[in-house]
């Protein structure tokens, strides 16, 4: 794939979590506007490898916008300037020839840098293992519609379940708050019958883990939702507040 875009990249380079990093400038040329942002980085990395230099480390996996692996804070916005897409689905046609693009990793106390643009997001995994599950014996396949679920609840739960856990909400939030992520995970289960037995415990434990990981508090700026590649709504944060405060007032855990 050949093209004629010439760009200046300023990329955060950092050897590991212990060393200090800095922005390095790279000129890339011959970029096609049909390339994804990650493919543009592949071009840069192939060149760096051929020059015997260390390629830029960045997270990626499915490159279809569903795995939540890619990150990159591009020109001051997580996943770049286009709403509702991940970095892998961001195409170079969203930029102009001659642009300077600054690419940084997610920045949060709770997301330490592994290398360059790759950060450790296991804080999210620990929040999930604190309560983001249902403990049910699945048994045989059930008859269809044996569990009545309203269309409204099903749609709302599905809109929360669209969260891919990429961490763009944390990266976008000026407080590095993980509320949108946690609210999506709490919502998707609290809206469905399977989520009811552990409903209060889930809200309490996931919020406690979120705080323990060192994420900031929510100030309802709405940056998370605006930058979320799955456009998760702030209504889920309101629901998490209800779930958490309700659980704290009524649960049996003293």
């Amino acid at each position, binding site marked *: 794939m050949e093209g004629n875009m010439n760009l200046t990249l300023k990329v955060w380079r950092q050897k590991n979590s212990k060393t200090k990093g800095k922005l390095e400038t790279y000129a890339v040329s011959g970029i096609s506007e049909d390339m994804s942002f990650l493919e543009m980085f592949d071009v840069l990395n192939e060149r760096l490898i051929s020059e015997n230099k260390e390629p830029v480390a960045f997270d990626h996996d499915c490159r279809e916008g569903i795995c939540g692996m890619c990150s990159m804070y591009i020109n001051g916005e997580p996943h770049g300037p286009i709403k509702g897409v991940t970095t892998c689905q961001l195409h170079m046609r969203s930029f102009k020839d001659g642009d300077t693009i*600054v690419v940084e990793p997610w920045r949060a106390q709770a997301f330490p840098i592994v290398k360059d643009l790759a950060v450790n997001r296991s804080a999210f995994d620990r929040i999930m293992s604190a309560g983001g599950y249902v403990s049910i014996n699945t048994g045989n396949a059930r008859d269809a519609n044996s569990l009545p679920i309203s269309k409204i609840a099903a749609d709302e739960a599905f809109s929360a379940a669209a969260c891919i856990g990429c961490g763009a909400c944390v990266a976008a939030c000026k407080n590095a708050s993980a509320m949108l992520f946690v609210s999506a995970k709490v919502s998707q289960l609290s809206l469905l019958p399977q989520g009811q037995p552990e409903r209060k415990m889930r809200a309490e434990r996931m919020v406690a883990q979120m705080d323990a990981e060192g994420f900031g508090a929510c100030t309802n700026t*709405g940056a998370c939702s605006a930058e979320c590649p799955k456009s998760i709504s702030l209504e889920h944060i309101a629901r998490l507040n209800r779930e958490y405060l309700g659980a704290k007032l009524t649960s049996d855990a003293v």
Partner: protein
Amino acid sequence: MSWITQTLTSSIGKKLVMALSGLFLCTFLIVHLVGNLQVFNSDNGMAFNTYAVFMTTNPLIKTVSYGLYALILIHAFEGLYLAFQNYKARGAQRYAVEKGSANSSWFSRNMAVLGTVLLVFIVVHMSNFWFDYKFGYTPYTQYETSLTTGETTAKAYEGPEIKGKMEEFMREESNTRVVIVKDLYRSVVEAFKNPILVIFYVLAMFSVSFHLVHGFKSAFQTLGINHTKYNPILNFLGVGVFGILVPIGFVLMPIVFFLKSL
């Protein structure tokens, strides 16, 4: 840690404290505005001065006002603490490029700055009026209302020292009601002759507006209220009433008195 402290010190619990104290402060603003608009009565400040006596002596109001002072301090210091914690949560290395305007309002990103301006304003405002009224020297004014004609005259009180903030009696022979009261109205007139103070008050009221355009609705979001039925009402109250009407009402006082003094 008991479940209560554990709840109130969690990130959502701290926001709950901010939301509830903030909404109480919003209700205070309405009371404060409606009461103080009496400075515009053309009665040489009689209504305003007697209202000030009521507000500083009535036991119910006094109790609520001590609660108010406590909540202002809680809201301010919890807010600053949260801002500090939230700043730290980003980590030591900050972003080189941030484009906040792409995803959030300026007001919402600067609540701590606006709030700090308001804290400074409250200190200045209280030292301007409240401190002198309570602890300093405020001259008394004597209002005489003729019950026959209904006319009121005002003059500076010169007589034996008054105990308390107000004395009220009837002069039977001339059928006149006499009210001698600490003249806070005069302090207002004097204070707003100073253009620097007037500018500071105007800036502070812009901060009130910006702080509440985000803060009012944000408080309800923290309480878990984000609903298609109520959001338009909350938007109207947050932007229309607390963001525009209330600050305009307040800012009229320094501006009108300054213009009158010219």
